[in-house]
């Protein structure tokens, strides 16, 4: 207690959003009568806001657009109402908890099914499952839910036990109850957003495939946030019954899910407070426009038009807009990024001496091996019976003309695509078919030919995703821990940034980096998982000649600790780096040797110049 009191300023800063929220909600009752509001409207707004907190975690932060949230809102509401009416208890807290848990359980089932697909399918499926709940409610379960009549006679909330119990029997009492629940819900959502779990969610929204590729179990993260959103919805649904003394079946309507989406967009997705503001706009406009002659009936159409306009030209919504405005007015301008684009030299910088000339050939144990690896697409055999062994500490280049099967082979190594036949072994274990996530957890990480970074996250947060995968394993729902309080993680991020020369740029959003820096971040993401084997897919693609020379130097430094396989078009890069080179042609391995021997190999020369007959497979 004293320790906390000793740092009031720090505490105030830490809880600033909650304090501001409590402040506004505390003075609201005094203002309400002057702006045509009532406790009843305020209570509804808070209930929608609570409902929206979960939805915002799901949509605003993770990018999953669900049109079925009404299912959980209704389920939580009816379970809570039924518990009170049956009555199994007269305690509202118990009923609300029961409703929340029920909604979460439904969330597990529907989430499991809906999350099998992404994007549009996910939206369609949640919508369909939401409707299924509505139909379940109105007929097969009518015995318990009252069908189209709903459940009437939900008692006024009775909280606590024994002598500590309170009965709430007026709208102002309900208001304070809702304020307490909303503020706690808001605090919890904000903790999630600021936790390692939340960091992974945001990265999933930006680029889910890459989150999986650095070793996170993306489906599990998605399911978890889906269940959290369902739980929020269930709690808000339970409160709806208490507010109205009646649980209406329209909680299950498609319109309910739709209204939630619209309110969240209007208020601002990804802000947590947005859905509350959106609900205020919706309910307030509804009340206000109703009373204006001539347009009373048009209020919803006007909202619809506003919604379409917001989606089309101003996706941030009111709160998002306010944040942008605030930053523009008060924040210091970000330091102008150091000019990076080195002028493009038409002639190449002198290539570095060959690495192979300076080192003995690698003799360590075999860490990665393929046996008779084959991939067929229909009638086309992209990779044909390739066996290959990689020794610890080696840098191996895979080269070959277009269509030789390099990238197919490479993607099979990283388990991005499964082979048609043959096996891949990592340190003696068969890893064929494990999938990219598990393979990355084992210690094989890949950087991509086309940048797969998280553009709106800072360099620090980009690298954090990869470091977290190594530190926390494929799934760990660390929701209450602050994301930047783990010293080992921070150290990991800084080390990774330093190794790809981005230490100065840690707080720059990735989208603002120069192209060469993005390319380095791409390599950094793979490196930050601390792999034993690093797979680099054309690391210098799109770079200027000067940047290529720098990158070769960088890769040499990195290579002191890891084993590397590199696919690259630029022969100067290949010959400057590789200890050994594997040459693929028409899906076959036609040579594998030191750079000097490869350069002298007549088959390889022919493959590159196209006198086909010499090495065409029989």
């Amino acid at each position, binding site marked *: 207690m004293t320790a906390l009191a000793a740092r009031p300023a720090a505490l105030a800063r830490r809880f600033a959003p909650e304090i501001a929220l409590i402040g506004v909600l505390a003075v609201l009752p005094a203002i309400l009568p002057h702006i045509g509001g009532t406790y009843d409207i305020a209570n509804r707004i808070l209930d929608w806001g609570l409902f929206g907190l979960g939805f915002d975690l799901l949509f605003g932060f993770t990018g999953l657009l669900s049109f079925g949230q009404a299912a959980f809102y209704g389920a939580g509401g009816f379970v809570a109402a039924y518990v009170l009416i049956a009555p199994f208890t007269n305690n509202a807290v118990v009923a609300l908890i029961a409703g929340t848990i029920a909604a979460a359980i439904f969330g597990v089932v529907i989430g499991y099914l809906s999350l099998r697909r992404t994007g549009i399918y996910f939206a369609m499926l949640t919508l369909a499952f939401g409707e299924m709940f509505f139909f379940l409610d109105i007929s097969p379960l009518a015995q318990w839910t009252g069908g189209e009549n709903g459940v009437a006679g939900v008692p006024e909330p009775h909280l606590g036990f024994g002598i500590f119990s309170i009965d709430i029997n007026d709208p102002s009492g309900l208001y304070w109850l809702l304020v307490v629940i909303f503020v706690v819900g808001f605090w919890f959502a904000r903790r999630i957003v600021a936790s390692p779990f939340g960091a992974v969610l945001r990265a999933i929204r930006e680029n889910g495939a890459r989150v999986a590729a650095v070793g996170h179990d993306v489906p599990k993260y998605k399911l978890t946030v889906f269940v959290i959103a369902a739980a929020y919805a269930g709690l808000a649904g339970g409160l709806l019954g208490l507010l109205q003394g009646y649980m209406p079946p329209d909680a299950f309507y498609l319109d309910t899910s739709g209204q939630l989406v619209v309110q969240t967009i209007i208020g601002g997705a990804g802000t947590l407070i947005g859905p509350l503001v959106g609900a205020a706009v919706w309910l307030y406009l509804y009340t206000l426009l109703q009373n204006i002659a001539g347009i009373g009936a048009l209020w919803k159409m006007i909202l619809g038009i506003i919604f379409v306009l917001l989606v089309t030209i101003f996706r941030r919504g009111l709160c998002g807009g306010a944040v942008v405005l605030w930053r523009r007015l008060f924040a210091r301008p970000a330091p102008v990024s150091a000019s990076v684009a080195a002028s493009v030299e*038409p002639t190449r910088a002198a290539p570095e001496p060959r690495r192979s000339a300076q080192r003995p050939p690698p003799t360590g144990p075999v860490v990665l091996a393929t046996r008779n690896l084959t991939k067929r697409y229909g009638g086309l055999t992209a990779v044909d019976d390739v066996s290959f062994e990689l020794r610890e500490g080696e840098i191996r280049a895979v080269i070959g003309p277009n269509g030789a099967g390099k990238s197919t082979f490479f993607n099979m190594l990283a388990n991005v695509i499964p082979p048609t036949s043959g096996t891949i072994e990592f340190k003696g274990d068969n890893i064929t078919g494990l999938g990219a996530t598990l393979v990355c957890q084992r210690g094989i990480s890949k950087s991509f030919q086309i940048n797969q970074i998280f553009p709106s996250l800072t360099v620090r947060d980009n690298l954090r995703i990869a470091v977290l995968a190594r530190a926390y394993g494929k799934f760990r729902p660390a929701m209450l821990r602050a994301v930047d309080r783990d010293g080992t993680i921070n150290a990991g991020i800084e080390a990774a940034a330093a190794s790809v020369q981005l230490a100065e740029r840690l707080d720059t959003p990735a989208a603002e980096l120069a192209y060469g820096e993005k390319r380095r971040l791409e390599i950094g993401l793979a490196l930050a998982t601390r792999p034993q084997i690093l797979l680099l897919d054309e690391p210098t*693609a799109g770079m200027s000649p000067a940047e290529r020379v720098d990158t070769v130097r960088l890769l040499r430094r990195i290579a002191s600790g890891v084993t590397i396989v590199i696919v690259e078009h630029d*022969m100067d890069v290949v010959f400057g780096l590789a200890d050994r080179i594997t040459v693929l042609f028409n899906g076959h391995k036609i040579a594998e040797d030191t750079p000097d021997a490869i*350069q002298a190999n007549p088959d*390889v020369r022919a493959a590159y110049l196209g006198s*086909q007959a010499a090495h*065409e497979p029989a």
Partner: protein
Amino acid sequence: MSLLEVDAINTFYGEAHALFDVSMRIEPHEVVALLGRNGAGKTTTLKTMMGVMAPKSGAIRFNGAPIGGLPPYKIARLGLQLVPEERRIIGGLTVEENIVLAGLSEPKPWPPQRVYDMFPRLGERRRSRGRELSGGEQQMLAIARALVREPQLILLDEPFEGLAPLIVQDLLGICRRLADEGRTIVIVEQNVEAALSLAQRCYILNNGHVVYEGTPGDLRGDPDFMHRHLGI
């Protein structure tokens, strides 16, 4: 006036700079080979000519009229036709439908029969779906799709890629016939020998820069240069 003038174009993939001040000229009735290693920018050059990618700077003129930045369908109607890498046959359509499709926007397209006269193999398979064809047949169809439009300039991107030697010989014969008919062709090919045997002139690209312009004979006379820019 050259048929096609490419004047110092710069093309980007997103932020990745792919072509650096590339300039070239294609005269009527000549076959020009565009050579270079993987990733040198050959396909990007063809795509920029066709309007699939827009150059960020520089000019492209076809018959003297600027076409840089126009959408592909407008460029196609002016008489330029790309036969793209990997052929891109519409797999769900039959051979004949692919041919008809290609002629739809052309006022006087070849009737399918004329294609079958030239490629009897396609005539035999006119009712087969594109995805059922072999690689060589698909390549014939891809070339036929360009021919029905009677283009003034044909851009061939890797026509021999992934095909067996015998089929390559067949296709080479077809290309030679087209050249003998006086058609203007730009060919991009990894198979340097095949491309040089067709061309009167060639350009070599390296890392997005034009590093050589000359005749196949001159190029063959400088094996060191060839190896530096084309081999390994």
